[in-house]
């Protein structure tokens, strides 16, 4: 890469991490990162420098105060802010990107960044069909994209089969005992839907799921500021899923459901969160299956 090109790429990556560019530019930069090991190395160095410098100056420790004071300011402005709107999807994607980028850096898999972001971009925003079904079926393209993400976290030399959870607020992975390569995989998507059919949160989980296996994740995402607990038990042609929101018996709510693998999305139940009804939609597809 020529020096001038390198500086320009750094400028564009930095703008991306600042949440500055529009979605087209974000997508373009991500594609360039995905296609270029040199760009991935540049991103890695930039993130390392940012992370180390901000930590050295105590910025990490102040992150909670930053978030709280930003929220306080927005609340303060609300009464006369008829112009106020909810964050647009593009901004949310970039925010999510920055959070995941830091997590990926820890894992040392910078290439995953682009794949993660690709998946986010490919997801359809708030699909509300004319029939009022708030969740469209998972498409083949999405499955292929998730496959790329999953392959990124299969690391040679690490015993076990990876699981991967992607939500609006989280992008994490881990390993369960087993031999990579021979496993049966499932993609489980659950969507929390509000009273107006609006999407409150979507949690996508990819997991190795031999019949009889079970995976429990206590912190798979966030809904209304509360952690989402996610438990999946897989059978031969069905999967049972339990979703809880909250941490203690006093503030928890949740839904259990059992769905056929490969079937269309279904509503499995409803609970109330802060007095508002929340419905849970679910779809489970075999990872290499033909769905959509």
């Amino acid at each position: 890469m020529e020096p001038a090109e390198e500086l320009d790429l750094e400028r564009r990556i930095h703008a991306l991490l600042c949440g500055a560019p529009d979605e087209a530019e974000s997508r373009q930069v991500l594609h360039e990162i995905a296609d270029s090991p040199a760009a991935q190395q540049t991103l890695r160095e930039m993130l390392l420098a940012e992370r180390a410098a901000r930590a050295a100056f105590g910025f990490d420790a102040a992150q909670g105060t930053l978030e709280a004071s930003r929220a306080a300011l927005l609340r303060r402005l609300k009464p006369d802010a008829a112009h106020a709107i909810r964050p647009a999807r593009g901004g949310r994607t970039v925010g999510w990107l920055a959070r995941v980028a830091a997590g990926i850096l820890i894992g040392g898999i910078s290439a995953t960044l682009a794949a993660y972001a690709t998946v986010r971009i490919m997801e359809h925003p708030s699909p509300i069909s004319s029939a009022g079904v708030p969740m469209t079926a998972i498409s083949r393209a999405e499955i292929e994209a998730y496959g790329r993400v999953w392959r990124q976290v299969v690391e040679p030399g690490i015993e076990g089969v990876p699981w991967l959870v992607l939500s609006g607020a989280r992008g994490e992975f881990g390993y369960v005992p087993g031999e990579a390569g021979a496993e049966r995989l499932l993609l489980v998507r659950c969507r929390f839907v509000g009273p107006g059919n609006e999407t409150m949160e979507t949690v996508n989980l990819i997991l190795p799921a031999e019949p009889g296996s079970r995976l429990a994740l206590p912190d798979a995402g966030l809904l209304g500021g509360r952690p989402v607990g996610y438990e999946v038990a897989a059978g031969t042609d069905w999967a049972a899923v339990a979703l809880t929101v909250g941490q203690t018996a006093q503030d928890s709510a949740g839904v259990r459901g059992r769905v056929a693998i490969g079937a269309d999305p279904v509503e499995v139940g409803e609970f109330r969160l802060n007095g508002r009804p929340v419905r849970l939609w679910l779809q489970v597809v075999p990872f290499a299956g033909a769905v959509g």
Partner: protein
Amino acid sequence: MDRPTDEQIGNWYPRLYRTALRLTGSPFDAADVTQQAFCQALGRWDRFDGGALRTTWLHQILVNCVRDWARRRMRRGQTVDVWTVAALPQTDSSPVDRAVRREEVQRLREAIGDLQAGLRVAFVATVLDGYTYEEAAELLSVPVGTVASRVHGARKHLQGVMQQAFPEA
């Protein structure tokens, strides 16, 4: 001129807060000063003439708020150091880890402080505070390309210093 949306305010807030944090050294004072700056800015939103980036204008208001804060503080006999920092996190698990961490942090802070002035302010504005290169260029009154080369130079220099100090890391 249209007032800003929640999304815009939410996007601008972190970089102004980080600037305030770096200048005040206190997360809570930084929150107060940043909120004050936004309230002042919103009160005179229509006066922005569009001759600069909006963030540059907000930054100037913030710096004035920090100056007021510093004056109040100095009247109470407390001085302000522009390189004052917030309390460092103490989350490492062992005394050895904490000692190593403190040493790394100290070395990095010294290395940033020792950077040639042009490199340092470009690095601080972009990497620490989180302004884009275009915004930093306006804040520092230099071309965007100059910001890019200075940030690049600063980062490479800091990488070299840290690798020399902690080759096993």
